[in-house]
């Protein structure tokens, strides 16, 4: 007879190696950049950028993990979210440009709520109309979602016109905070906070709730979850809506970050998002978080050190990571 304690499964071995990557890159960059204050500014800016990319990419990777759907139309939700927020801006102009932090923040939250609601509803429609007929067929999924992207982008052009729209930041979030030599843009701090909140919320929901348990089980083995009597299709729709809403949130954050909107903005970010998702391991939220920070921080350093190589550095980074772990940092077990 074995004692009771030994009957429990061995604890899953934690994989810490990828966690060291971001600090490692930052440390390597320090002597190259030279001035510590510039380095801090660059790092913080990179982290902020990384958080926004993470918000966008997490939705994509979650949808892929659970539903095995690679949604190339994800970029459309980014654009739609940003434009939805922009169309509410005239209504809230008074609060957005008031000289009060609370009013500004409330207005921003209202914009985000609207954008997320719109993209969630759109996500529902997208899942029903575009994706449902092609579950399990990767090639068709890619084609159909690209088609959806073209249509969505053209519709946005039809409604808002092809030109750039300005999206100025609320008054309280403009400018920088100065700590000694280090200047930190206020909006970037907000981006970091929002990104951390999203990450924490996702981890909590995935690891501590019943829904999260079902989602994780669905990622591992969807058929088994269904056999146990759970309606996995309903779960799919829910996760797809959540993923789309996250893209919408990311779209608003990204729009304010650039302070302008273009119909092609979603597709522009998608390039980075795909790199992040590939680096992190398709379907892994944690990997996506590390990947996003890694990509943004590296891009920032190279942008400062050798501006012409900025996007090339991402490709190089991706190649290196894939040489190390050919399925990304945290590959999802079944795939």
């Amino acid at each position, binding site marked *: 007879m074995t004692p009771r304690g030994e009957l429990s499964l061995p604890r899953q071995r934690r994989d810490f190696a990828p966690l060291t990557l971001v600090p490692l890159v930052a440390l390597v960059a320090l002597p190259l950049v030279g001035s510590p204050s510039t380095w801090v500014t660059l790092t913080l800016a990179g982290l902020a950028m990384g958080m926004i990319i993470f918000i966008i990419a997490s939705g994509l990777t979650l949808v892929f993990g659970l539903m095995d759907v*690679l949604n*190339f139309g994800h970029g459309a939700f980014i654009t739609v979210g940003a434009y939805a927020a922009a169309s509410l801006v005239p209504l809230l102009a008074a609060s957005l440009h008031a000289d009060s932090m609370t009013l500004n923040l409330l207005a921003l939250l209202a914009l985000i709520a609207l954008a997320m609601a719109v993209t969630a509803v759109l996500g529902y429609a997208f899942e029903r109309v*575009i994706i449902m*007929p*092609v579950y399990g067929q*990767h*090639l*068709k999924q*890619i*084609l*159909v979602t*690209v*088609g*959806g992207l*073209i*249509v969505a982008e*053209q*519709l946005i*052009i*039809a409604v808002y016109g*092809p030109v750039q729209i300005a999206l100025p930041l609320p008054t309280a979030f403009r400018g920088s905070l100065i700590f000694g030599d280090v200047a930190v843009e206020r909006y970037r701090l907000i981006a970091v906070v929002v990104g951390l909140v999203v990450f924490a919320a996702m981890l909590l929901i995935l690891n501590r709730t019943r829904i999260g348990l079902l989602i994780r089980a669905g990622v591992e083995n969807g058929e088994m979850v269904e056999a146990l009597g759970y309606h996995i299709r309903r779960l799919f729709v829910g996760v797809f809506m959540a993923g789309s809403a996250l893209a919408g949130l990311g779209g608003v954050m990204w729009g304010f970050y650039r302070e302008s909107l273009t119909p092609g903005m979603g*597709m522009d970010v*998608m*390039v980075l998002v*795909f*790199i992040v*998702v*590939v680096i992190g391991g*398709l379907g892994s939220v944690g990997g996506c978080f590390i990947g996003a920070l890694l990509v943004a921080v590296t891009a920032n350093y190279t942008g400062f050190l050798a501006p*012409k190589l900025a*996007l*090339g550095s*991402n*490709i190089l980074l*991706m*190649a290196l990571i*894939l040489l190390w772990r*050919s*399925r990304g940092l945290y590959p999802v077990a079944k*795939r």
Partner: protein
Amino acid sequence: MKTLGAILSGDPPRGRVLTFLLLVILISLAFAPLLFPGTAALNVAAKICYFVVLAASYDLLLGYTGIVSFAHTMFFGIGGYGAGLALYNFGPSWTSILLGTFAALLLAVALALVIGLFSLRVRAIFFAMITLAVASAFSILASQLSDVTGGEDGRNFRLPEALRPGFQFVIGPFTINGRIIAYYLIFFAALILFLLLLRVVNSPFGRVLQAIRDNEFRAEALGYRTVVYRSIGNCLAAGAAALAGVLCALWLRYTGPAVTLSFDIMLDILLMVVIGGMGTLYGAVLGAAIFVLAETYLQNVMAMISHGTADLPILPLVFHPDRWLLWLGVLFVLSVYFFPFGIVGRLRAHR
């Protein structure tokens, strides 16, 4: 009949309507300078020629191998820049064209091999994302290296003497100018490339590609190294796309990011192949012809509809001439669902 079969690699269009349409396209293109006088029409014809090669080579990947690449415009661009920059830097001679073409081919195939090794090894789905990332990096690189590539403006260059509009060539009563010679150079090059691609997809090698597309596991079990076959297919498609890029540069006498590298062109190619019909090279011909014609002439038709319905709500907005891509996008989604083999599939079913 036997020779014709050999030229088409034993893969005739099948279907009366389809054969008729393809013959119409072939004859219109072959006699374009006589049938449709005017520069604009000849431009459309030449564009169809090199887009047929581009779409057909993309179909080799998408339709025959079952992998989605978003880097096809990159290879197209490499060809365009290869020929264009060679002509720009080494002067307007045939040697420059050959040199540029050769260098472009080499670069395209090498790059395709490297990308394939990184992404085809793991999962085909990686390939779509990685090609997208690499292609966008390449297009940014091309516009940033403005000393070499001319940046966003691209490069204008001169062609060899015989291909210039001023060149006159007299046979009997006819006078042929250099522009028409250039057109026929492109037409015949495109025709030969298309027939070669047809040869490839109907060779034993092409059959293996299709086997991998239909059932990768089984193909592997039969002893075919799927990665090797996919990589070779990828390299062949990249090489053909680069040659299409050379033809494009020769016709436009210009090369730049907007005409060769932009993501919009990638979407155009996707639309052509899917609407025309995946998994059959004739689909690429139909798709390219329909798309280029739509791009040029559909806008006029839509302008008329938009004008005619000006009093009604929404309709004029939806039929605005700039919305033509919206309609093709809708058609694209519908054809993926309902006509997975595109127009060609429809025409063959109703034989």
